[in-house]
């Protein structure tokens, strides 16, 4: 169990890493800028091309990456508590499946970008309500039932996505695939996602010790005075909302929600008072770094960032699994 001081030190160093990743992301790209130029651009002194690039292109994109990475990592940590399963991630309950169906349908019918976002968000919420409604059907609410319902709904959404891809006209396919793989270049204003991330964190942090008990089992948590039912509903709703918002901004980006909580857990232990904020910072850093790489690796072409997080995530995750076979799943 980390002491409060050690927890603050870890959070401080993660925050520094996040700031550094954002700074690098602002300075790199087709127009390379010095740190001084970036700083001047941020405070609005730098006119010309550099200032324009930083203020209207790179900064919104970096902040969107930060917000989405933080949201996905936080949602993943919460889902792992909710399902008491270290393998849970934000997409396991079919939320991104629903969002993909909504977004691809909007693309298929040639709807404008705003309706595409509405479609993605609506699809995510619809999948979330469907899973919750079905899993709650008989009044009981076991995590196995929730998990099964989510996996089934996700599979159904996958089939719908495949159907839409197969009947989509050629010229729409590329956009659809990029959306499915996660892409921050479409990100509009990052502020709503950032605000939701901060508000969500403020909702969750006061309950982080209760959540730690919940992850150890409902009965013992309830005996120790944790309002189990209300808390489970809260984290289900919040994790779904975080995922829906992140998917809405950047498409479906895999592995952040799964590996970041595990990386933090390995490095700093399983105390949720530290794990939750540390996951937000580490998730934001990872996505900002991945997106910077996606922009510059094969410039001027851009890669979908979801491909990079998965390429980084798969080996790390396999390594973790093989390292701790005894800890996988209840």
């Amino acid at each position, binding site marked *: 169990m980390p002491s409060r001081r050690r927890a603050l030190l870890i959070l401080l160093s993660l925050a520094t890493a996040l700031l550094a990743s954002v700074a690098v992301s602002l300075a790199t790209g087709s127009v390379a800028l010095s740190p001084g130029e970036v700083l001047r651009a941020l405070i609005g002194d730098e006119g010309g091309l550099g200032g324009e690039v930083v203020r209207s292109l790179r900064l919104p994109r970096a902040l969107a990456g930060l917000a989405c990475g933080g949201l996905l990592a936080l949602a993943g940590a919460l889902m792992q508590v909710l399902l*008491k399963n270290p393998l849970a991630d934000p997409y396991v309950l079919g939320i991104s499946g629903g969002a993909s169906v909504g977004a691809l349908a909007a693309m298929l019918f040639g709807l404008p970008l705003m309706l595409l976002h509405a479609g993605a968000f609506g699809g995510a919420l619809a999948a979330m309500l469907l899973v919750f409604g079905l899993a709650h059907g008989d009044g009981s609410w076991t995590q196995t039932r929730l998990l099964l319902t989510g996996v089934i709904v996700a599979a159904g959404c996958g089939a719908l996505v495949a159907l839409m891809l197969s009947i989509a006209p050629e010229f729409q396919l590329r956009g659809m695939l990029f959306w499915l793989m996660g892409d921050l270049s479409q990100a509009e204003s990052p502020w709503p996602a950032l605000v939701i991330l901060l508000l969500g964190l403020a909702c969750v942090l*006061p309950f982080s010790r209760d959540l730690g008990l919940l992850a*150890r089992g409902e*009965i*013992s948590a309830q*005996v*120790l*005075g944790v*309002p189990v039912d209300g808390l489970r509903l809260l984290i289900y709703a919040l994790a779904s909302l975080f995922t829906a918002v992140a998917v809405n901004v950047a498409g479906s980006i895999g592995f952040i929600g799964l590996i970041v909580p595990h990386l933090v857990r390995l490095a700093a232990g399983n105390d949720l008072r530290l794990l939750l904020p540390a996951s937000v910072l580490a998730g934001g850093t990872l996505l900002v770094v991945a997106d910077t790489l996606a922009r510059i690796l094969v410039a001027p072409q851009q890669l979908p960032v979801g491909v990079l997080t998965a390429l980084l995530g798969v080996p790390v995750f396999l390594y973790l699994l093989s390292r701790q076979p005894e800890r996988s799943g*209840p």
Partner: protein
Amino acid sequence: MTANADRDAPPLLVTQSLAVTIAGRTLVRSLDLSLRRGETLAILGRNGSGKTSLLHTLAGLRPAAAGRIELCGRPYAEHAPRAAAQLRGLLAQTHSDAFPASVLETALIGRHPHLGRWDWEGAGDERIARAVLASVGLAGLEAREVHTLSGGERQRLAIATLLSQQPLLYLLDEPLAHLDLSHQILMLELVQRYATECQAGFIVALHDMNLALRYCQRALLLYGDGRWKEGPSAEVLTAASLSELYGHALREISDGDARHFIAA
């Protein structure tokens, strides 16, 4: 307000006409029980006779099918969850460890109801956790990962976690499961010590009628069909009543003052 509005503090736990049902089957009917501080009560019954369900109902974890429960003079609805957690604790039958944790961390979770929302466990909490770990014979294992413990060690850790919670009323669901003989005796002596020194109350589901007779002042027999019988252990625990309870003939053997039951 209370049933016996006298000068004394209300009993730790009072039930009036309590019924426990599972899937439409009534396991316990019209249970009237009162437990004061310092008292120990054993619950005996066959598998599926409702011992666990009754304990969970008494802990306020599941609603009573009928009747009334009062913890320290007030129903659970009038206790905030945290306040109730400072008054009663439960040793559950199963312990899940989905995520890694050390022995000390696990013992410290019992301190949860005593900490404020933003508090972290302090030196005092750690001292309590280390002391209870030592009292169940787990001193020296504080840094061990929980999933490396044996079944008996895990059970003793669960008991230590409950002790670090420091409630007034202890509800123990088969505390002797997985324990070897010497640790069974150690745990029951711990129960006796807490009952006399801390004036805590204990309700203990047990399968060993001899240990119940020796260590618990009172006994509650659950027949599983709604009937129950409660009274001082020495009176309630007889060869006849136990034979009926378990559906298997038992014989009583006397060894000086001590009485023992063996399966016939």
